[in-house]
């Protein structure tokens, strides 16, 4: 891998990226995009994130460490914008450009934000759910976090859309399972037991969505529920191809990573960058999963 001294030794530009996580598929895809851009623009990057999206302190330590490496630019997906305020000020003082990504940073300091609108994306999922259910019925949500913004936005966007546009759809239960597939499976199964008339379920990230699919399979209720999900990944794509899942919303994590680094490079060079880089989201289902536009945004 890249040697530690490389940025200083060979004078390569160095960009520090601190994300919200690193273990999960989503973040690995962001990392992939960032690495792709790094190669393309010939810069060094480092990519770190806390073990869990609740570890705000760990992210603060990682931010501090990143600053200690004297990066030319800093990219950040803040778990809590206000908590990161100090480091942002520090960066500003040192004239280090800051790029925000994913759900963005609530501050004036970042010169650009490469993100998707989680709420809007969730509303898209809700729209399809409502259509598939004919605007009525009981549904439940398996969330991945009740505190992280990605979790709450994807929940709230979904809930709000249904409240205003399909008031006859009743959300009977929301359970959170850390995006862990096994835990999500167990949670989804208990929900199905508690609400035997359930007509649909929504999982707010890959782990949650696959958990829901597993649960339906294990409970022998295949085809009886409408399942919509979030993110991609092989299992989810297979479920959609097999008709187990109606469809899912995917963001473009690879694009987020790529655009973030690209913006950082531009900022370092003093070029002008767009304040908001919307990397978009897409609804995909059995019908369009193979479309090149869509396929480009899916990851296994």
């Amino acid at each position, binding site marked *: 891998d890249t040697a530690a001294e490389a940025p200083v030794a060979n004078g390569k530009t160095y960009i520090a990226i601190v994300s919200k996580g690193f273990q*999960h*598929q989503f973040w690995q895809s962001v990392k992939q995009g960032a690495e792709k851009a790094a190669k393309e623009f010939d810069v060094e990057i480092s990519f770190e994130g806390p*073990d869990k999206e609740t570890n705000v302190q760990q992210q603060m330590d990682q931010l501090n460490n990143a600053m200690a490496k004297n990066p030319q630019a800093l990219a950040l997906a803040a778990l809590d914008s206000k908590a990161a305020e100090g480091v942002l000020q520090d960066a500003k003082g040192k004239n280090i450009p800051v790029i925000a990504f994913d759900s963005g940073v609530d501050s004036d300091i970042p010169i650009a934000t490469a993100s998707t609108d989680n709420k809007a994306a969730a509303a898209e999922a809700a729209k399809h759910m409502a259509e598939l259910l004919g605007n009525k019925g009981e549904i439940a949500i398996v969330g991945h976090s009740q505190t992280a913004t990605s979790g709450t936005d994807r929940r709230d966007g979904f809930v709000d859309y249904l409240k205003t546009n399909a008031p006859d759809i009743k959300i009977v*239960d929301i*359970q959170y399972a*850390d995006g862990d597939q096994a835990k999500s*499976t*167990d949670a989804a199964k208990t929900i199905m037991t508690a609400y*035997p008339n359930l007509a649909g379920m929504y999982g707010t990230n890959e782990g949650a969505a696959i958990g829901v699919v597993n649960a339906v399979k294990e*409970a022998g209720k295949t085809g009886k529920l409408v399942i919509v999900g979030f993110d991609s990944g092989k299992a989810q794509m297979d479920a959609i191809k097999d008709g187990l899942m109606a469809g899912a919303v995917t963001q473009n994590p690879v694009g987020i990573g790529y655009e973030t680094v690209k913006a950082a490079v531009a900022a370092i060079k003093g070029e002008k960058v767009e304040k908001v880089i919307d990397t978009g989201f897409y609804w995909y289902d059995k019908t369009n999963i193979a479309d090149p536009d869509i396929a480009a945004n899916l990851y296994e």
Partner: protein
Amino acid sequence: MTLTKDAAQAAKVASNKQSEFNTRLRASFQQLLAFASLLALVLFFSVASSNFYQAANLSNILLSTVVTGLLALGTTFVIITGGIDLSIGTGMTLCSVMTAVFMTQLGMPMIVGVLCGVLFGALMGGINGFLVAFLKIPSFIATLAMMMVAAGLALVISGTKPIYTNEVAGFQKIFALGKSIPGLVIPNAVFILFAAAIVAGLLLSKTILGRYTYSIGSNMQATALSGVNVTKWTVLIYTVAGCFTGLAGVIATARLNSAQPAGGAGLELQAIAAVVIGGTSLAGGKGSIIGTVIGALIMSVLTNGLSIMSIPQEWQQVAVGVVILLAVYLDMMRRKKATN
């Protein structure tokens, strides 16, 4: 010797028999009472929600017990020796990744892959045992380090991506639904858990390994001075415990049809809680497999029941904490009564 084998002696023998019987009776009474918390919980939830006491839901509960249950079985051995195993959570994840690697990337047939997965768990357990017994590193530290190493390696080996096992013939059957008992759909995985529990129980109560497990936990130095090769046996015991971690990894893979390289952390505390709720003492020397199984069931009945009742999740956590306290406390009270 000057023993006079007279009538008094005979009477004494008879009274010995009597009191031995009493001791046994008391012991099984205790075992019975250990069920009580579990039954109380089941009863409570059955009354609280009509959806709880349904065949399908009971099968759910059993299913969600499988992985923690297997981990708890293994760690029962370690805890009885007076040690602790924090590596079971992420270790299980690593075993899961390795199983998938064996079966997909190395193309092993299903059975061989499963076996290798279990053996990989044994290897990890053996390393833990080596660190504890040979290098005399406290088990808490040794297994904490192993926990981190396993978490890291699972990501490294998998390339931080899930490894899918759908292509592996027959593998999903391991977790699939069996229909062995008419009317009740019990997944194969549950049978595996119970089979594993029986094996663990026999190992612990009927074999030398089990006897040494208790002896080491009761007084390691005395056991060593009695001519038992404590180092060797400790490694063996940890290795056996590792097999259960490996098996848990295999089953988790089969359930999800894939090895998920992240996560697993936190499971160790759940498993240890199950063991302790089941009456095994963290001080070592005492414990039983049946207790562990009951403890694991208490944990999953609780989680399932509260969530069936649609209690908000933050309150669920509070409730689980409180119920664990109550279960352990009542169990202790009962034991006390039983011995008085």
